């Protein structure tokens, strides 16, 4: 998130035992704390994704956002709903950034019903607008896991087999109100190869555990807001494709951006095709991307051509999703005591204070934990190596 959410007044907040966070564990290593385990898991993620796996690059993802009564809980600031939607905006942007040829759709569930907020589409604008609007909606009643999964399934089941079909549920409530046996639905989802992942906002719910286990998704429960963001970002990365999914060639167009300068007399302002169905102000623009097949004009990429159905992307987009296939190799972890050398992280220039340091195997530069994660999760290239490349 760009800005910190404004802190609630002290008396509005819950009862917290801030001092306990600082407390050292006297009982020694006998009781490793949950944080330790989490830290291990974090590292594992980085080192894990390095096998030669096929990734489902073309994703169809439905995000189900619980909007039931429990979303009004204030343990995330200012409340769960606002915080979630804000993170979702960030997620949508990041998602399209990293998966340019994928689509997303949003479903909300409240009052025992499921409602489609936006349909599966490849344009972030529309989703962002819908998310912004959803902030003002009220949270009432109970969610229905069954209904919302069913709505998502109805669309996803028509998607071609070579795409990765996913559902991500952000589940705040601890109960669900279902019209039928959910275990039957889980079986159907499994048969359709739809992967369901859940991020829980309050605690581990049994039915979600089963749901994710059966469909091959992941189930996580947030600890706090930053952990929430971290978990959400995990879903930005394309998941490994199941070995049974088909492969197929996809036709794509790489439209060129034609910049028409005002001085050019021939240029006439024109409408973009994407404005056809939007009610927003119809901007007349000069330049734009023109579909190589039918010459329809678009102002933004990636998009599916409305006229001929061709997927239009830009080359940098495709290149960006490329890095998933050739990820940066994991850095070597060494305990701080054994490390001899300058005690500064190469990236953030901060002092190395954590238990262990991380060395890039190529350039032998040293990084701290946070930077290590940042490099692997966001940058996807080692700043040390870049530097040496340039100098050499």
């Amino acid at each position, binding site marked *: 998130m760009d800005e910190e959410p404004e802190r609630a007044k002290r008396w509005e907040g819950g009862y917290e035992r801030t001092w306990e966070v600082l407390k050292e564990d006297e009982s020694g290593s006998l009781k*490793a704390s949950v944080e330790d385990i989490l830290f291990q898991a974090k590292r594992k993620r980085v080192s894990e994704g390095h096998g030669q796996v096929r990734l489902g690059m073309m994703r169809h993802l439905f995000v189900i956002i619980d909007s039931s009564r429990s979303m009004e809980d204030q343990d995330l600031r200012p409340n769960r709903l606002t915080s979630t939607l804000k993170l979702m905006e960030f997620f949508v942007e990041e998602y399209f950034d990293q998966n340019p040829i994928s689509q997303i759709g949003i479903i909300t569930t409240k009052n025992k019903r499921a409602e489609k907020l936006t349909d599966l589409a490849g344009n972030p604008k529309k989703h962002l607008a819908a998310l912004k609007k959803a902030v003002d909606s009220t949270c009432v009643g*109970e969610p229905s896991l069954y209904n919302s999964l069913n709505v998502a399934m109805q669309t996803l089941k028509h998607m071609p087999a070579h795409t990765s079909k996913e559902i991500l549920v952000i589940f705040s409530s*601890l109960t669900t109100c279902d019209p039928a046996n959910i275990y039957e639905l889980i079986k159907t989802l499994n048969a359709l190869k739809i992967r369901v992942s859940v991020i*829980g906002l309050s*605690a*581990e*719910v049994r039915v979600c555990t089963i749901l994710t286990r059966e469909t091959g998704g992941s189930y*996580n*429960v947030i600890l706090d807001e930053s952990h929430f963001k971290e978990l959400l970002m995990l879903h930005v990365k394309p998941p490994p494709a199941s070995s049974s999914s088909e492969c197929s060639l996809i036709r794509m167009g790489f439209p060129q951006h034609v910049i028409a300068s005002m001085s050019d007399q021939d240029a006439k302002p024109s409408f973009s095709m994407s404005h056809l169905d939007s009610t927003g102000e119809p901007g007349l623009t000069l330049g734009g991307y023109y579909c190589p097949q039918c010459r329809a004009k678009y102002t933004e990429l990636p998009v599916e051509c409305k006229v001929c159905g061709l997927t239009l992307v830009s080359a940098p987009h495709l290149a960006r999703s490329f890095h998933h296939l050739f990820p940066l190799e994991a850095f070597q972890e060494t305990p701080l005591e054994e490390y001899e050398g300058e005690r500064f992280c190469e990236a953030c220039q901060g002092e190395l204070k954590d238990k262990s340091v991380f060395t890039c195997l190529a350039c032998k530069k040293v990084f701290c934990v946070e930077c290590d994660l940042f490099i692997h999760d966001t940058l996807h290239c080692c700043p040390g190596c870049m530097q040496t490349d340039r100098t050499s």
Partner: protein
Amino acid sequence: MKLNIDGLLVYFPYDYIYPEQYSYMLELKRTLDAKGHGVLEMPSGTGKTISLLSLIVAYQKAYPLEVTKLVYCSRTVPEIEKVVEELRKLMDYYTKQTEAKNDFLALALSSRKNLCIHPEVSALRFGKEVDGKCHSLTASYIRAQHHSNPSQPVCQFYEEFDAVGRQVPIPPGIYNLDDLKDFGRRKGWCPYFLARYAILHANIVVYSYHYLLDPKIADLVSKELAKKSVVVFDEAHNIDNVCIDSMSVNITRRTLDRCQTNVETLQNTISRIKETDAAKLREEYSRLVEGLKEANVARETDMYLSNPVLPDEILQEAVPGSIRTAEHFVGFMKRFLEYLKARLRIHHVVQESAPQFLKDIYEKVCIDRKPLRFCAERLRSLLRTLEIADIADFSAITLISHFATLVSTYSKGFTIIIEPFEDRTPTIANPVLHFSCMDPSIAIKPVFGRFQSVIITSGTLSPLDIYPRILDFRPVTVASFTMTLARTCLCPLIVGRGNDQVAMTSKFETREDFAVIRNYGNLLLEMSAIVPDGIVAFFTSYIYMENIVASWYEQGILENIQRNKLIFIETQDAAETSMALEKYQEACENGRGAILLSVARGKVSEGIDFVHHYGRAVIMFGVPYVYTQSRILKARLEYLRDQFQIRENDFLTFDAMRHAAQCVGRAIRGKTDYGLMIFADKRYARADKRGKLPRWIQEHLTDGSLNLTIDETVQLGKHFLRQMAQPFRQEDQLGLSLLTLEQLQSEDMLQKIAQIAQQA
């Protein structure tokens, strides 16, 4: 893996071991070495059963002359089956490792109802009916009649077993109840009698407590067990109550009425037999003159487990003349019955000791102490002589005769209380005579006396020192083990106040207080909003639960709770409760979430496990003190104070806390499990209460969580549940709470293990 426990090679059928299991085995080994008794407390879900079995089996294999048999006593049939399954795993491991053929015989024994394969008899629904029907097909005189008159039905399975079953020993192996039945069907032998016979030479016997503790049954089943056996009582936290129940007798007016019919039947049968077969009665008479010498000889050679109902003295004497003939005995019983009826016709409560009762009966109806003592034996002999087929019909008179024998045998440790009505319904006359045992050590004494080692073990035995005192024995090892955890998966919290700072307690004075009830309701409401899936709430009694739930309903709290979770209630009706339980589990399973309201000391609190999502939180509303106005309890407390120097309050607190620990322990059934334990009563914070909780709960109870408000509890609970929901894999446990063989052998791990056991 193969372990070296203090010089003993132990085969352990799993690849990993918990440190506390290792420690447990060390203590157990020491106990066996010393040929003494032990009290061991280890939390449930840490593999107590397999540790016990692996060590004792290894010991049996290493020193076949020292320990010849393992007698494993458990409480319920499912538990028995579980033990046998563990044993099977162990034995499979043995065969795989040593590649020698298994020569161990282990079997489970249960009642006829669970073992019968006779097509008609096994179709009956109640245990009593099955027993009665079986007896009517297998009694010796029935079979003799069958000999002369083939139309008399007998059980062909028993006949077959009797003909050949005893000569051919059952092949070595592990038999659970179903295996026995299969084996019986294959051979055409009766599995029940086969099992009864086979326990004599089996290496391991798994059966219910009652076969060893209840003198009436122990006499039939267990009296020939070898002295060099190791006896294990698992889940033994209630063993004193089992002992007491097995020695106590309750007589109502209904019992007496049925007894009356029994006596009449007896009389008719006698007069009939007298006309047809007077020789039989004469024969019995002369046998009684001979006395019970046979039994006496057997006891002297120490072959039998002595029967506390049948005291030593009467074995040396002949049955007194006054009840030697059948008619006299029936007349005697009639008089005794009339006397009891008269005693029940009262309007106030009477409490007296056994000698007082005997004096009174002598004065009123001239019944002496001596014939009373022989009552049970005499009745048994008579029933045998009269060839009465259906023993089940005679349960009333058998009960009365047991009472007669017990009351005249023991002058100490028993009390007689006659109540004209129940306390709750003072207008309805419902007289009951309680002949109540106050000293659990009477029933268990022969067990301690006879067997080389007796191990008492459970998840909750704290405080450890009280069991040796009330059971009157001297253990060589007393130890409590904690649970080593890779993450703190239990979270005990004591909630003492509501958000309005009003103290929360189920104390008698404030029980009806509106504020307390409301706060309890709020606590449940708040918890229902943050705890996923299942919550189990325990109340101190059914009446209290009814009152509170009614009050919650009026205040609209129930309605609010139902928005979060469904509510199920345990009732005294077993069928209703099991239905509620089933639906409760369904609701937990499919994500709706549910709350089960139940009662400490009830069925749910004792036998039902709430693993994982079935119990994410347990709330204990109030301290589950036993109903202190009960006269039986008062008498027992007095006895404990006089005889064992245990103060009333100590015992009551001990009893309440062991039940509270049982209740909250329902939720944690293993190391991967997690759950909140909420004690909603400020009295739990007091050192005398807290100190009586098992060590594995106590050590997670920090000073900061002793007197919380509802708000604070919610915050802590939320935090805990989120922490626990983080992914947790087996690798995280390795090296801390789960060890491989190499890790186990490292120096500092051995040092750590030494700290796990705490000697009391």
